[in-house]
């Protein structure tokens, strides 16, 4: 069985936000929705101050807390570990958003154009994939993955800090990286078993 996952190398990340942009382009999400984000925060005080840069996306947990609370069966987990929301089943109760400890889920409040009242042609196409009043989230670009491609954020990363592959396959690039380098997951102590790893 495969378990798709991502490894993000924080040593090489330059916080260029290309992943954020590529995600918007690939998935055509409406304004205020960012399936891929880069969190930045300053910690400490001079002279030990440092900047924390953390690219985040849905962790596609092995034991997803969002799936546990979904009352309508809209959230599902594929065989390969990708956690998806079926927008047609979603009733918009937002329980999954409160359950997600990573704040990775987005409620589609309204679908409006970035450039004023009228939608531009590309928005008219991309917004067909979204609907108002439901919860959506990163899909690991499941349509690309089905075709054997990498997620958009991985492909576009100029610093090659994102790696995508099968965590269960010991010979995959992600597995080799995790074996060779020190890594961490977000909030490992709460038992969600995220499939996104960070190399330090």
């Amino acid at each position, binding site marked *: 069985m495969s378990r798709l996952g991502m490894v993000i190398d924080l040593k090489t990340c330059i916080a260029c936000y290309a992943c954020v942009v590529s995600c918007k382009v690939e998935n055509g999400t409406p304004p205020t929705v960012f399936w891929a984000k880069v969190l930045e*925060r300053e910690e400490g005080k001079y002279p030990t101050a440092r900047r924390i840069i953390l690219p985040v996306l849905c962790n596609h947990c092995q034991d997803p807390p969002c799936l546990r609370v979904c009352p309508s069966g809209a959230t599902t987990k594929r065989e390969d570990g990708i956690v998806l929301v079926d927008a047609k089943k*979603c*009733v918009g109760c937002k329980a999954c958003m409160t359950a997600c400890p990573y704040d990775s889920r987005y409620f589609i*409040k309204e679908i409006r154009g970035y450039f004023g009242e009228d939608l531009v042609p590309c928005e008219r196409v991309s917004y067909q994939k979204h609907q108002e009043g439901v919860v959506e989230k990163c899909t690991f670009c499941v349509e690309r993955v089905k075709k054997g491609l990498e997620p958009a954020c991985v492909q576009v990363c100029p610093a090659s800090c994102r790696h995508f592959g099968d965590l269960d396959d010991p010979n995959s690039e992600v597995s080799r990286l995790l074996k060779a380098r020190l890594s961490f997951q977000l909030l490992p102590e709460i038992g969600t078993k995220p499939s996104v790893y960070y190399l330090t």
Partner: protein
Amino acid sequence: MEAVKPVVDFEDRLEERAFSPLSHISAKYALLVAVLLVFIGLGVYAYQTQFREGLVVTGMRDRISWGLYVTMFVFFIGISMAGTLISAILRIAHAEWRLPITRMAEFVTVAALVIAPVFILLDMGQPTRLSNLFIFGRWQSPLTWDVFGLTTYLIGSAIYLYLALIPDLALCRDSKRLKSHPLKWLFKAFAVEWRGTHSQHHRLARTLGIFMIVIIPVAVSMHTVTSWIFAMTLREPWDSTMYAAYFVGGALYSGVGVLIILMAVLRKAFHLEEYFKLQHFKNLGYMLAAFSLIVMFFNVSEYVTEGFKLKGDMHLYLERMFVGPLAPYYWTYALSGMVLPALLVAIPATRRSIGFIVLAALLANIGMWIERYLIVVGGLSLPLQPYHPAIYSPTWVEWSLMAAGIAGFILLITLIVKIVPAVAVWEMLEHRKPKPVEEPVEELEQTRQPGLRVKLGSPFPEKPTPPVDGGRK
């Protein structure tokens, strides 16, 4: 009002007092209904806007995705505890002072349980897909438990209210005072041929006996699963095993509070001073104070253990709540919502005044509302990732719908007290010691019914008997 004969004895007076609100509508009453309808109209307009534009017209955003609506849901679920407590728990305990107020408590329960789920619908992004909960529903989800819990509780409470109403509906049907009442057909239909016979009493007592036992675990489980909507997530402020108990305690507290307020209002409006005495307010006040101590205990127990360990981000949460931006809410809740009501009841000088007890109840409910707001919004505002704490400010749509919800709750009670008697006439009558026989026997037959204690345990008298033995001759 027709057929006003001089009110002489207790029974007649009780009937007069209990039935007179049913037979006429005063200008004040009409005005109240009109004002409530205005608020509900505002809510309808707000919801129309929300339905058209989507939830973007609310203040709820991605980080704080539950706001006033869920707060109101939890608040109304809490209030619904009133009926169960007063009429089931006190009925089991044979606390006879409860008799005049059981009916009102059951009104509160049913009205609150009708309004509460409305707020869940308001909170949903796709309310038209409600059926998905049943078609694709996952029983593993705490929300599904809540749906089933709420439905069971509502149906159970409604049946319980109705069962205890049957003898009173029969009294209404047979009363001379309500001879030309426009809802006479309703009384007739719903009194289900109640004649007050021995076997009918026996059956009613048995059914009520079963219901009052069953409704208590149903109520407790309802508050439990409501708390589990929060406690089953991994959010640190909600991640507590104590939440279920905390919610049940809070529900008892706010339920008693609403009951005290309603009792004071009806006492004034329907001139029920003879039945809602200071002692009733005091007794409920004592319960209010006791529950406030329980809620205080839960607060201390929760925050001292969390504050001692300061696990994870809890220090940020506690800091925000005790000294940070949420501090005004928290301290209002803690001081005027828990400590002050308890003090108002504890100090003999204030306890002697109904006004102060009502004030305590009012403060308790404002406090509990803030507490629910803090749980929902405060809990969600805590970042679990390197974010800043999230902010939330409700929009006019949410405030309007909140006002409409409260107005709807008041309206339901306002309407129901005009349709059926607000005090359980039959239960009070049957607890009265029968007077020496100076009235005709037929009247006695109709009004005087065997005592509850008799109903629960020992056999029933075939005919009204002197109260000394209370049992079969």
